[in-house]
């Protein structure tokens, strides 16, 4: 489906309107979280205006490679996704679960207060919205609910951006998640730049979005705007070079637990866990217990964890998955196959982060294709 039919409620704001929108959100109590440059990559952190953002930058991404370049224009959203994902706002990398004070009788336990900070996420891409919907299934859809996650989620205002220029590592098109944002936003923007124009065509996804937009100078979209927007989106869709076939991937991977390809990939994989850290859907965590010197005050922290460690599967006497081949197999098979059994959706949104940030450039789309290839497709798929 193309996005052109999805919404009739469309308005246009200009370049200054974007900063005006940010001011409105701040005055409504929102903390702005958006893209900014740190250590030569685009990360997500607090911003106060578009001055903090990677204006005029573009990312070049390849397996094992990420570089920022000047674009030569003033585009505000002229890059795609970097090493951060929004999951860090909802499922923080490090989070205190509770603290306990021992005092003889029943210990005093204190859990952190509910995080009631309202956050406005600026520049959320289609794949990232899909990733958030996937994590909702893990943390909110039960049977148990992560209350802190749920609270933070409820307090989000989401400004989505349709991607104009996918990176070479993107394959959201074949995962059905992008390059245009589809749902789950309050506002969604198409950046129009060139020929002396710099504007944002804004769709409204919620009442709240409409209210915020009302406080920003805007004009109604014209037929011209809508055509331009559809063309930009179509160009983005066609510009995507990478793809992954998913219709058979569940059966493919679950019948290939013994494929020699796992050994082959394990000779390249460093089990560095980068892929799991950058992935917007990976949700595994561990816990850490700390005490003060007296031992009476204890804290329990939850931290992101990765299936690429042998501790991850440790059972008394040893690890269940000590080898890199079984760790990689666990990751890929979970992400693409068993995730479907568990949550009814595939666990990958095609953002390509794990491809760019893998130090040795392992590409999951290539691994899946290689496993499929190893089965002699001519015989099995006619």
């Amino acid at each position: 489906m193309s996005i052109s039919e999805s919404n009739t409620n469309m308005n246009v704001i200009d370049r200054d309107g974007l900063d005006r929108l940010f001011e409105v959100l701040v005055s409504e109590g929102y903390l702005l979280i958006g893209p900014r440059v740190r250590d030569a990559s685009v990360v997500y952190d607090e911003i106060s205006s578009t001055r903090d953002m990677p204006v005029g930058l573009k990312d070049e991404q390849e397996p094992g490679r990420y570089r920022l370049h000047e674009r030569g224009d003033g585009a505000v959203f002229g890059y795609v996704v970097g090493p951060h994902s929004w999951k860090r706002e909802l499922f923080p990398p490090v989070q205190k679960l509770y603290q306990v004070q021992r005092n003889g009788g029943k210990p005093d336990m204190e859990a952190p207060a509910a995080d009631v900070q309202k956050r406005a996420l600026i520049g959320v891409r289609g794949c990232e919205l899909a990733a958030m919907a996937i994590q909702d299934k893990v943390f909110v859809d039960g049977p148990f609910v992560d209350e802190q996650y749920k609270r933070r989620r409820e307090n989000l205002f989401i400004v989505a951006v349709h991607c104009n220029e996918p990176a070479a590592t993107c394959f959201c098109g074949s995962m059905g998640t992008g390059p245009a944002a589809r749902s789950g936003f309050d506002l969604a923007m198409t950046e129009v730049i060139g020929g002396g124009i710099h504007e944002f065509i804004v769709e409204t996804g919620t009442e709240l979005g409409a209210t915020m937009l009302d406080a920003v100078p805007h004009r109604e979209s014209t037929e011209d705007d809508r055509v331009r927007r559809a063309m930009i989106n179509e160009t983005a869709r066609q510009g995507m070079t990478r793809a992954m076939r998913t219709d058979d991937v569940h059966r493919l991977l679950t019948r290939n637990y013994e494929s020699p390809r796992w050994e082959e990939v394990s000779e390249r994989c460093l089990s560095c866990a980068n892929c799991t850290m950058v992935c917007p859907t990976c949700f595994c965590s561990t816990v850490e217990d700390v005490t003060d010197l007296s031992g009476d005050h204890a804290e329990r922290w939850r931290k992101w964890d990765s299936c690429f460690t042998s501790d991850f599967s440790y059972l008394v006497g040893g690890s269940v998955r000590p080898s890199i081949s079984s760790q990689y197999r666990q990751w890929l098979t979970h992400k693409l196959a068993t995730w479907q059994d568990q949550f009814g959706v595939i666990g990958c949104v095609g953002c390509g982060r794990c491809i760019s940030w893998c130090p040795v450039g392992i590409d999951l789309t290539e691994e899946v294709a290689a496993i499929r290839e190893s089965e002699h497709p001519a015989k099995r798929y006619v």
Partner: protein
Amino acid sequence: MSTIEMTSDMGVIGADPMLPSWYAVERVRRENHDTFTLELCACDGETAFGFQPGQFNMLYVHGVGEIPISISGDSERQDIVTHTTRAVGTVTRAMWQLKRGDTIGLRGPFGTVWPVEEARGRDVVIVAGGIGLAPLRPVLYSILHHRESYGNVVLLYGARTPDDRLFVDEILTPAVESRIQVDETVDRAVTGWGGKIGVVTSLIPRAGFDADEALAMVCGPEVMMRFTIEALQRRGMDADQIYVSMERNMKCAVGFCGHCQYGPTFICKDGPVFRFDKIEHLFGIREL
């Protein structure tokens, strides 16, 4: 945001499944040189604790850590919560040090249950290896309470040495008195042991049960379960008559941490007790 419901009440946070409740150690019992049983009472003195045989709790030792331990007590008693643990590492050794009156954090009960109800009217084969008898003890209590509801009941138990045998007074002796056929073996004998020596699977061929209709419940190390299942299948039992309790590293027990995945399953919520036909296709896969 649009994808999840807004709650009307934004001020109060709901019950957090990661937060423990406090229990006091009522009684410590040393079962053998490394295994002990803790009887716990809710610190508020009021909360009744209900569970079903096969379920487990997450037990938190102050500042040390939190681990999954099956409930080994009688499910018809709600005033105490009983756990039998083998001291093998950091948290279990810290638990071994606990004394009457000490507090422990508890979350639970979690997980699936043994088919105690489905087994009514049928023969039952219980096969336990070592500490594996602990998660099965609630089943034996149930059967002892309702002995007339079951057909032939067989308990096959393998321990490392005669001194390691668990629950001699609570289960092994009363079971025999209640017409449960108890057959035991040890890996290594000591002087004075007149019983069998060998692996627990060697007891299966001659055990008195009707393989066509019996249900089997198996708990022990994974290799022991594998050979037990093979022996049960050789007796003619089908995969859907056999139940096993699986173990994986576990940090949260509520499906968040991802550690306990076993193929498509989460041991914490889809297990730990599985009917074997549900996981048969995974069982032989190396390093899964």
